């Protein structure tokens, strides 16, 4: 099971690539100019993307262990 749930608010996302470039596992990509989940299984719930998303567009919720 994935370690966290990734939610993307497409209305707020501006497709800046920060989340994609700073995700240590490559779980995210840009599709149609917006952030998208590439592989949810890769997400470790590290929060790197959420903390540095300037647009309030990513919400990471860690799953209970």
């Amino acid at each position: 099971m994935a370690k966290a749930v990734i939610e993307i608010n497409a209305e707020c996302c501006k497709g800046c690539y920060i989340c994609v470039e700073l995700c240590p596992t490559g779980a995210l990509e840009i599709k149609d100019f917006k952030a998208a989940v590439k592989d949810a299984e890769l997400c470790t719930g590290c929060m790197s993307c959420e903390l540095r998303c300037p647009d309030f567009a990513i919400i990471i919720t860690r799953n209970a262990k």
Partner: protein
Amino acid sequence: MAYDYAKFIRPGRLPHIWCPGCGYGIIMKSMLRAIDSTGWSKDEIVLASGIGCASRLPGYVDFNTIHTTHGRSLGFATGIKLANPALKVIAMGGDGDMSAIGGNHFIHACRRNIDITVLVFNNYIYGMTGGQYSPTTPMGAKATTAPYGMIEPSFDIARLAVAAGATFVGRTTSYHAVPMEKLILQALNHKGLSVVEIMAGCPTGYGRRNGQKAASDMLIWEKEHAVPYEKAKNMTEAEMAGKFAIGVIYKDESRPEYVESYDRAVGLSKRG
């Protein structure tokens, strides 16, 4: 667990106007988490800003906010704090707002040591007007008004604040989202004039002219050039060349705070 910013955001105000990849949104989030940790109520908090992209921040958040004239946030903030010292006053602006047109207000607020927290968003240029050089543009860097590279030496905002008399001075970056939150919280809880200089990327006005094409390049640059102050203070000038210290740079709790000095003087005059 995901942090709920919505309680502090004015309904319908997002998405904000900042460009894709602008570091300011990251600052806004760290600042909101820091404010939340103080336990202060929304009604006792005042945000004052000048003019510029940084100064647009107060318009998005549900506190008492005032968007003033260019460089003058600290004039308004000083008046607000003196009129009602119970309010928690935070002033913010860009490097241009705080160190060029507002440089005078900045040094004198520091000198007075009035109980205000000042957040300086340093993106090395005037973002809003199209990337002109500012007092913090590094020597050699390109700006619309420095097409051959900046020929003037730059201000170090944090050192300027210490020299002018601020009693809490720190520096952080938009890469360091969590340390930034903790530093802002320390500044908010400090009694006296606190300054936090926050390095943030302007991909539109600075990055694309200076070899940082992607917003993430600017964040990684910040990560690679920031040195914790405890380490930096033992490094030579040559070792620190091109780098900058982050963390708490200066703290002094012994100096009198301005509103208290003012009240004492008023009390003396009444007894007169």
